[in-house]
């Protein structure tokens, strides 16, 4: 029984023994160090022998196997550590060759969606509709040159409309300077360059009204040249984008693909920050300038100023964007300001493998009652848009999702609100 008591006392004292073992380890460090030195010398000799035998695997063309496995050793804390030999299966030169990029190297990815809607709007009918079928092309042409393209097929009553949404070639000099030529999504704000046409990428079913495709509030596309890159700024993570190109077409929802409508190019400057300490946060602002010719002899100067903040880690996901579109008549010097913003919040639920993401968005657009540019281009329907939507996204796989959404929108002051239920199956392939 006494011996049991001794054992019990020993058990109680084990943490103290353990604490002492650290100091014992430090005392025995010289001998461990000498062993490590010997191992290092042996490794060096093995490496020399291997080099002598085969001059390294990368130079081999006929032998697909790597050197044989050997024992594992812990990593040493040296500037150029000589580590333990590997022990897994060998890697063939074929794998090395396969891992290298070949030029050109075209990759195609598709996006699609199928939608259902039902609203209480008198003139609309409920039912299914095909969303956009979107094909995206990427092809590195060399180490520093890449091509990007995007085409969409949009369902029309009698046919499908094919549109080239993006098509540009980009030359990378380094991280600080990349220049592209072609047709882009205008880098105004966040949404327009973050989600493009793939409905699967965005949390909600539709884009905010202020940047909707076919809308006129924001020029969604620009045709010309764009320079972009990082700005050396340490942990602030600053980036810039400068663009020069054909601005809005005479039909304001279109870009000047086939040429500008006047002799004044549109230009844009934007700056964004992704602070390293606040991983997931992005802030940005942009300025866009153009001269508009909605009708021959009728000219306006256009300034669009905007800012955004996004937090995209999913718990929560926050997006908020603001834009002010300023028009000045070059004939009468009258000025007009139209303001739009939205704020969206989503939260990826931690249950069921994070597949569920409920969301809410509020959006608002206000334009003056008299706004000659919008009146000319037929966008007077959006006078005082106020809308909310609430929904949930369910990722059924990594590449497909279902979304269900309830919307309540009022297009103008004095008009009734429209309520609707919307469903979407969106996917990438």
């Amino acid at each position, binding site marked *: *029984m006494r*011996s*049991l008591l001794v*054992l019990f006392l*020993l058990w109680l004292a*084990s943490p103290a*023994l*353990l604490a002492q073992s650290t100091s014992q380890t430090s005392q025995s460090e010289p001998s461990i160090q000498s062993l490590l030195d010997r191992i290092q010398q042996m*490794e*060096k000799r*093995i490496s020399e022998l291997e080099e002598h035998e085969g001059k390294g695997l*990368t130079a081999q063309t006929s032998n697909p196997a*790597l050197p044989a496995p050997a024992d*594992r*050793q*812990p*990593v040493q*804390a040296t*500037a*150029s*550590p000589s*580590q*333990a*030999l*590997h*022990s897994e*299966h*060998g*890697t063939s030169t074929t*794998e*090395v060759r396969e*891992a290298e990029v070949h030029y050109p*190297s075209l990759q195609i*990815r598709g996006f699609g969606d199928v939608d259902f809607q039902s609203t209480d709007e008198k003139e609309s009918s409920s039912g299914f509709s095909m969303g956009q079928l979107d094909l*995206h092309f*990427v*092809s590195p042409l060399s180490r*520093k040159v*890449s091509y*990007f393209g995007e085409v969409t097929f949009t369902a029309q009553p009698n046919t499908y409309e094919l549109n080239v949404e*993006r098509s540009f070639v980009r030359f*990378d*000099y380094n*991280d600080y300077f990349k220049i592209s030529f072609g047709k882009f999504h205008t880098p105004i704000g966040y949404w327009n*360059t*973050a989600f493009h046409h793939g409905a699967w*990428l965005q949390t909600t079913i539709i884009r905010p009204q202020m940047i909707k495709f076919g809308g006129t509030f924001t020029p969604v596309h620009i045709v010309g040249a764009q320079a972009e890159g*990082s700005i050396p700024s340490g942990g602030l*993570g600053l980036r810039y984008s400068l663009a020069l190109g054909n601005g809005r077409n005479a039909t304001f929802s279109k870009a000047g693909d086939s040429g500008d409508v006047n002799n004044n190019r549109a230009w844009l400057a934007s700056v964004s920050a*992704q602070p*390293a*300490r606040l991983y*997931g946060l992005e802030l940005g602002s942009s300025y866009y300038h153009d001269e508009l010719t909605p009708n021959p002899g009728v000219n306006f100067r256009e300034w669009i100023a905007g800012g955004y903040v996004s937090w995209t*880690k999913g718990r929560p996901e926050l997006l908020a964007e603001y834009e002010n579109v300023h028009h000045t008549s070059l004939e009468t010097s009258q000025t007009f300001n139209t303001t739009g913003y939205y704020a969206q919040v989503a939260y990826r639920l931690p249950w069921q*493998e*994070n597949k569920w993401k409920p969301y809410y968005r509020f959006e608002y657009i206000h334009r003056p009652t008299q706004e000659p540019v919008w009146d000319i281009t037929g966008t007077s329907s959006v006078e005082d848009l106020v809308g909310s939507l609430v929904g949930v996204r369910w*990722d059924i796989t*990594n*590449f497909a999702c279902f979304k269900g959404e309830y919307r309540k929108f009022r297009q103008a002051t004095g008009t009734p609100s429209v309520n609707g239920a919307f469903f979407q199956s969106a996917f*990438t392939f």
Partner: protein
Amino acid sequence: MRAYWKTACGVLMGGWLCLCCTAPAVAQGHNDVALVADPDIPVSTLTLAEVRKVFRGERQYWNTNLAVVLLIRAPVARERDVVLKIIYQMSESQFKQFWIAKIFRAESATAPKVVYSNDMANELVSAIPGAIAFVDARDVRPGTKVIRVDGHLPGEAGYPLR
């Protein structure tokens, strides 16, 4: 009967002491994931934020003439789990969606290359200019460049990738 109890207690005691003595050794270094790179890259130390920038494709060039080539282990590997948890702070599906979106936004022309073993990662970082990868610290090959993260090498106290 007393002898039986003595033996049993002795065995338990011995086992307990062995566990106590060996556990810290396992915790220190043996689970670390080393950041290995092409020896020619002009970088030997990175902060965790810089590693994140590189692996998120925000830094794409080591210098004007040397592009970053990202190598990442295929799913299920522990090294991939560590990278997703600490570097990307994403789940597997979020990681896949992140790279699809990144390429779709034209922010990168290629996704990270998938490697199927630490051996393959070791081989490719020495064969592909500008390559960088994560491997189990015990599998780092002689002559491979190991990048310090936040000033620490695998096995050192404060090393963040474990």
